[in-house]
């Protein structure tokens, strides 16, 4: 330790250290240490008072021993004594010891804090800095509590020295990061911003770091920093390379400060003030110009520092995303770097360009570099650079270059590193779907994917291709032909067998005309793969076989033979055995007509967000630095890529749940109870086998079978009873809810009984009660005319995903309603999980020969399943704090639509279902409530707070629940009530 030992020789310490270093064995070292510890202990305990120097020396030795890994259980007091020494070196060692060894020993903390307080007040800059460094190094909550209020004062005091300000800024930053709640905002914030103008560059650098962190929480408080940062930046950028002396690094003026200023500006939108903005644009242009000038030094340090500023400038330009000229220049600059000989620059250029690709102004400019990027994908030796290139290709892809990019990525996949294969597969699958012009290309691409990287093709990917093929009849024939060909390869991936099995089972008939792919050929091709496949695939193939029996009656005998084989009928796997038994029986007892109905082609799947996209987002996680992660970028990239998407993502819920195909989302036809004999026959088939439970999360494979399975336990015969029930409204022929439906629904959010609807013909009354997650609703249909209603049929329909969220059992009502009479319908309701949209009630009847149809929203909202919860103020606040994530809270500020009456409000809140808690909110005008939403799958705790402002005739409503959509939905529902 040359610097320390020269001037201030603690010879004893140097000797001790060299003794330790010379120890030949661990034992010798321990012996030497123990000897020293005994010596120090005796010195500390001795009668003679030690002078400062000795204390310092011994404390130093203890510190050294501690750093060697030994416990130190004494000497703390001596170290604390050193803090009050007037000698710098003694004080410094005291602080060093405290910073390294401090623990929350209560009496010592008091003494330490006292010493720190004295030093902070000492007006001696060196002592103040030591104290500030100690606070920052310890950074504990206790330290924060003791000093967080003092430090801002020191920071902005006019008479503080530069070095003290610098330390104070960094110390405050540290405390703020550790416990933001301890740092009070106040009038000092405005003065901190002015530190950006400070003469001393060190103070400016520290202040920028502090402001960048603080302004993220309180952007408005620090808004004035924009113009100051711009003028500071402009002075640095335009200064000559020697102006800043100490802060010039290889002829680049203040590179790190410039980067920090540019980063600070990225916390805000572009400056509103035209003059400030002009000056900033000028700065950015200067940086871009300098990149083209010949370097002032050949040293790599010079260009590195310059490039650091350049990349941060480009980040800011991308962040603003409003200056087309700058964006294009940035893109060209990055284009140069793409071919630079330094790997670092190529990596960073690819990374930046990825974000540039999602700006509408620079997307075209980015696309011009496609060949370079493809080349990088092929030739880069560094996997992380290749990964960046793949990301960029994905980001720059649009309809014009999709084919080229997808084929390059496919080629890359063959040699890609294992670690990134799955991601590439997902990306290819998404691009192929998004930009597919003709679907045969799409099918080819996905099959290629399976061929090249079958192991990395996740379920989502092959589910998706089935979904698309099922929904687009123009591609079905091609798909059948292609999978048939693909399956002919001697070794094909199991995923290929799955896709092939499913597609041939559905659409094999489309290629059956060709003798080369006649039904028996198709079957024997599939069956040749059967024995090598896993159980899941074999189960799928069995379903294909039964579908074949329907499609190709000529294969029936062969297939029945296969099903009847002992290896199927007595298979050890329950699922396979069950399928074999059931299919065999089905094919033997059911007539052709029944078979045709049961095994009909799958209906189209409801359109929804591609679950592959959801998977990719999940996989990458937030902040992984690709264009994909960021919702904003992603959205805008969709825009500019001109996505006329083949599958419009009409997402009903953002849930990335597993029910890819959302079969349950399509309401099953509500059929009348079956009376036919054929129906009973088949019911027996089902009840013979092991109970076929309708599962909640259908795989497409289950979906494939769903026509065989009863849609609900209640009506197992529904499917067979009446193949085309004319009176039954399918999902497609239900009209949209009447315009007033929402308003009518709102009336029932806080009450359970009343008139739901009334017109000249019909009145519908509601009476309902809810307990926990169950509810019963009585609907009263009153015929207001004197003529009989005929074919009267009210049905409940679950739009979207509601089927999995809410179960509603209805009893049928008489088909005739006499004039003036009233009929009653009972609904049993079970809330399975949280839901957002209410079910629809569709009422149809004939009045005087004219058909009448009416669709209403059934007054079942999530708050009906509230169970009020009483709790004390303390519990309430504790829970409130626990739900403090931003997404758990929903807040709405709105104008009162009704007179603001406390009693009415109370009644409404109680009607809404939550308990009202008195004496919780310090303001008696406010309302506070708590409750639990009971569903079968989960419980959602809810806290709410309503703050009326009588003067402004406004309310502020805050909801906190453990589930984000629930918070928002409850907030919306309740806000409409006041």
């Amino acid at each position: 330790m040359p610097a320390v030992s020269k001037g201030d020789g603690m010879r004893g310490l140097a000797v001790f250290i060299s003794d330790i270093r010379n120890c030949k064995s661990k034992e010798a070292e321990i012996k030497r240490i123990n000897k020293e510890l005994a010596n120090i202990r005796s010195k500390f305990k001795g009668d003679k008072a030690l002078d400062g120097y000795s204390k310092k020396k011994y404390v130093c030795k203890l510190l050294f021993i501690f750093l060697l890994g030994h416990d130190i259980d004494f000497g703390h007091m001596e170290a604390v004594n050193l803090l009050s020494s007037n000698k710098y070196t003694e004080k410094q060692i005291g602080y060093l010891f405290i910073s390294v060894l401090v623990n929350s020993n209560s009496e010592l903390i008091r003494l330490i804090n006292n010493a720190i307080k004295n030093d902070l007040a000492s007006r001696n800059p060196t002592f103040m800095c030591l104290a500030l460094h100690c606070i920052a190094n310890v950074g504990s909550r206790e330290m924060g509590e003791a000093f967080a209020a003092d430090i801002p004062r020191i920071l902005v005091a006019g008479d503080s020295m530069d070095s003290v300000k610098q330390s104070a800024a960094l110390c405050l930053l540290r405390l703020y990061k550790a416990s933001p709640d301890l740092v009070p905002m106040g009038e000092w914030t405005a003065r901190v911003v002015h530190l950006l103008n400070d003469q001393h560059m060190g103070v400016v650098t520290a202040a920028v770091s502090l402001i960048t962190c603080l302004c993220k929480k309180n952007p408005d408080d620090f808004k004035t920093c924009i113009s100051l940062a711009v003028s500071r930046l402009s002075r640095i950028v335009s200064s000559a390379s020697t102006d800043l002396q100490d802060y010039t690094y290889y002829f680049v003026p203040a590179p790190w400060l410039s980067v920090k200023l540019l980063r600070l500006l990225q916390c805000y939108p572009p400056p509103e003030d035209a003059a400030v903005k002009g000056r900033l644009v000028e700065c950015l242009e200067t940086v871009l110009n300098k990149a083209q000038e010949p370097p002032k030094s050949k040293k790599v340090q010079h260009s590195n520092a310059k490039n650091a500023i350049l990349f941060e400038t480009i980040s800011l330009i991308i962040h603003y995303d409003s200056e087309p000229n700058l964006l294009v220049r940035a893109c060209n600059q990055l284009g140069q770097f793409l071919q630079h000989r330094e790997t670092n620059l190529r990596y960073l250029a690819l990374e930046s360009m990825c974000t540039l690709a999602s700006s509408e102004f620079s997307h075209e400019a980015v696309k011009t570099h496609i060949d370079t990027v493809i080349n990088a994908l092929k030739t880069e030796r560094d996997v992380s650079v290749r990964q960046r290139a793949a990301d960029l290709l994905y980001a720059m892809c649009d309809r014009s270059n999709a084919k080229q990019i997808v084929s390059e990525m496919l080629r890359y996949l063959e040699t890609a590193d294992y670690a990134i294969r799955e991601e590439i597969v997902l990306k290819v699958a998404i691009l192929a779907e998004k930009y597919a012009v003709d679907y045969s290309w799409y099918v080819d691409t996905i099959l290629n994917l399976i061929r090249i990287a079958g192991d990395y093709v996740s379920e989502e990917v092959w589910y998706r291709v089935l979904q698309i093929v099922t929904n687009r009849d123009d591609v079905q024939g091609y798909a059948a032909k292609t999978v048939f060909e693909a399956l002919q390869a001697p070794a094909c991936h199991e995923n290929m067998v799955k896709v092939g099995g499913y597609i041939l089972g559905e659409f094999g008939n489309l290629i059956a005309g060709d003798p080369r792919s006649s039904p028996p050929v198709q079957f024997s091709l599939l069956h040749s793969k059967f024995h090598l496949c896993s159980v899941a695939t074999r189960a799928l193939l069995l379903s294909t076989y039964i579908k074949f029996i329907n499609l190709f009656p000529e294969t029936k005998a062969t297939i029945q033979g296969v099903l009847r084989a002992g290896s199927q009928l007595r298979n050890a796997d329950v699922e396979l055995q069950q399928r074999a038994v059931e299919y065999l029986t089905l094919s033997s007892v059911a007539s052709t007509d029944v078979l045709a109905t049961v095994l009909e082609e799958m209906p189209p799947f409801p359109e929804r967000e591609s679950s592959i996209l959801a998977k990719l987002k999940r996989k990458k996680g937030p902040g992984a630095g690709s264009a994909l992660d960021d919702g904003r970028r992603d959205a805008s990239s969709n825009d500019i890529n001109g996505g006329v998407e083949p599958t419009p993502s009409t997402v009903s819920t953002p849930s990335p749940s597993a029910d890819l195909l959302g079969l349950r989302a399509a309401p099953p036809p509500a059929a009348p109870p079956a009376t036919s004999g054929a129906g009973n026959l088949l019911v027996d088939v089902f009840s013979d086998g092991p109970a076929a439970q309708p599962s909640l999360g259908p795989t497409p494979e289950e979906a494939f079978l769903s026509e065989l399975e009863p849609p609900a336990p209640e009506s197992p015969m529904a499917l067979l009873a009446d193949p085309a029930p004319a009176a039954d409204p399918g999902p497609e022929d239900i009209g949209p809810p009447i315009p007033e439906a929402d308003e009518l629904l709102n009336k029932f959010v806080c009450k359970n009984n009343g008139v739901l609807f009334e017109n000249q013909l019909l009145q519908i009354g509601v009476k309902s009660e809810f307990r926990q997650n169950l509810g019963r609703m009585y609907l009263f249909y009153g015929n207001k005319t004197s003529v009989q209603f005929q074919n009267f049929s009210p049905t409940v329909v679950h739009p979207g995903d509601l089927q999995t969220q809410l179960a509603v059992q209805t009893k049928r009502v008489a088909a005739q309603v006499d004039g003036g009479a009233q009929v009653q319908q009972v609904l049993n309701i079970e809330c399975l999980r949280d839901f957002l949209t209410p079910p629809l009630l569709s009422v149809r009847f004939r009045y005087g020969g004219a058909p009448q149809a009416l669709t209403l929203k059934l007054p079942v909202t999530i708050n009906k399943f509230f169970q009020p919860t009483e709790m004390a103020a303390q519990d309430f606040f504790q829970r409130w704090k626990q739900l403090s994530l931003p997404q758990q809270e929903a807040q709405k500020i709105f104008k009162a639509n009704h007179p603001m009456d406390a009693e009415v409000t109370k009644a409404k809140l109680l009607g809404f279902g939550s308990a009202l808690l008195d004496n919780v909110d310090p303001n008696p005008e406010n309302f506070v409530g708590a409750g639990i939403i009971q569903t079968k799958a989960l419980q959602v705790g809810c806290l709410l707070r309503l703050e009326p402002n009588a003067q402004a005739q406004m309310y502020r409503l805050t909801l906190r629940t453990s589930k984000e959509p629930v918070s928002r939905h409850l907030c919306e529902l309740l806000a409409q009530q006041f």
Partner: protein
Amino acid sequence: MIKFFLMVNKQGQTRLSKYYEHVEISKRTLLETEVIKSCLSRSNEQCSFIEFKDFKLIYRQYAALFIVVGVNDTENEMAIYEFIHNFVEVLDEYFSRVVNNV
């Protein structure tokens, strides 16, 4: 933002570590081992930035010594890369021939 600053030699011994975020002592050793492992496995042709868990490593090698900085994804890689060199120059100025002494 810088998460940590490490100086580790080729044998994997940590020579200096400074953490700017709380990391438990026991986890530090594990982290440092993993960090140096991923640095040692790199060749000269590879770039100086490694995506590591949910953050990035930026490293430079001086003879047998690696200096590694862990940053979050909003940090400017080039600035940190050059900052490492600046740091080494400062050490060199202060202690003279720093690399050989460590």
